[in-house]
């Protein structure tokens, strides 16, 4: 269920960008995810539903574009698409190939509703989305856990999912 960590990172980034842009609400989040990445779309949807409440992204439409893997043959230079298991060059059968697409984990864009602002400084007044820390410099935390630093045992999470 590392999708929870991925989604937390998405939401942290989206929250920061949306606030900067003066959003009162995020209406859409668009991601690109390569088929070679270990990501299950259903698990991402589930994580989104679990983690987005009380953030600007609550209720946003989540769309995920998948990317078919693509490789280049190091011997003959052929570029070809393939599945997760077979990378051999279809032209010369070489196994010496290099993956050029299919591992993406990317936030493309978001759509926001802006506040009806009187000024234009970009920073809105608190638009009611208290609760989520604005974590520009904070590392994304798997499940929003508080990190305790101890000399020997680093206890990272709050509890199992």
């Amino acid at each position, binding site marked *: *269920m590392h999708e929870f960590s991925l989604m937390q990172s*998405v939401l942290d*980034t989206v929250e920061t960008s949306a606030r900067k842009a003066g959003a009162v609400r995020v209406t859409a989040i668009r991601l690109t995810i390569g088929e070679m*990445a270990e990501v299950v779309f259903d698990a991402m949807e589930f994580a989104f539903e679990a983690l987005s409440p009380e953030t600007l992204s609550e209720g946003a439409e989540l769309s995920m574009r998948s990317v078919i893997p693509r490789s280049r043959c190091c011997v003959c230079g052929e570029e070809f698409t393939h599945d997760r298991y077979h990378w051999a060059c279809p032209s010369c059968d070489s196994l010496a190939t290099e993956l050029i697409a299919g591992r993406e984990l990317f936030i493309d864009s978001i759509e926001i509703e802006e506040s009806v602002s009187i000024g234009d400084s970009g920073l809105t007044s608190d638009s009611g989305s208290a609760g989520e820390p604005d974590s520009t410099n904070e*590392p994304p935390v798997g499940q929003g856990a508080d990190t305790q630093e101890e000399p020997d045992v680093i206890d990272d999470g709050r509890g199992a999912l």
Partner: protein
Amino acid sequence: MTEIPIAKPILDLNDRLAAANRALLDSHGVFMLDLIASPGAGKTTTILATIAALRDTYSVAVIEGDIASDVDARKIKEQGIPAVQINTGGICHLEARMISQALDALDLDSLDLIIVENVGNLVCPTDFYLGEDCKIVILSVPEGHDKPLKYPGVFQVAQAIILSKIDTMPVFDFDERQFRSDIEHINPHALIFPISATKDHGVKTWVRWLSEQIEQKRRMKAKTAHETE
């Protein structure tokens, strides 16, 4: 409604923290490997055998990632080797931020090698860069030769694969030829080290390769130090 381009990797922050870890390790000439395997594949046993073979030549530390407990860290410490235990508390993989904290707890000046034992899992750790020099996957013979086809992602990102518990090959229906052929199809560049850590088979070859990586890293540091003088 306004569209705002973000154009950032989902793991942007993790990757930046990982890059900082890597820069820190590079500046100290410390080689770090991220060891990934399913629970029970023999990660800790392999680490102990690796330590036994290397400890006279290199200074080693271990970062242990587990959902809970410090069983593994204690086993390492019993050998007189520094170990930091990370308890992820339910998170199924290690992240760069956790490694940053663990590195803070280690004396990098005195180290040549850090072995990170990731949480037992063949899926989740795959996409998380920790700042390591390489990812190594251990597959144990009892798990079966079909695992690379079932979990291709992790076998694709591995620079090397340790096939462990090879002494049990006669008991299990493990088709090594099929295993090698599957690896060749999903990661033709991966090295394969068949070992039995408890019977001391193959450990030397694995450790020789690892020593070369450590030496290379040391040379890189020496070269950088020389250039900046």
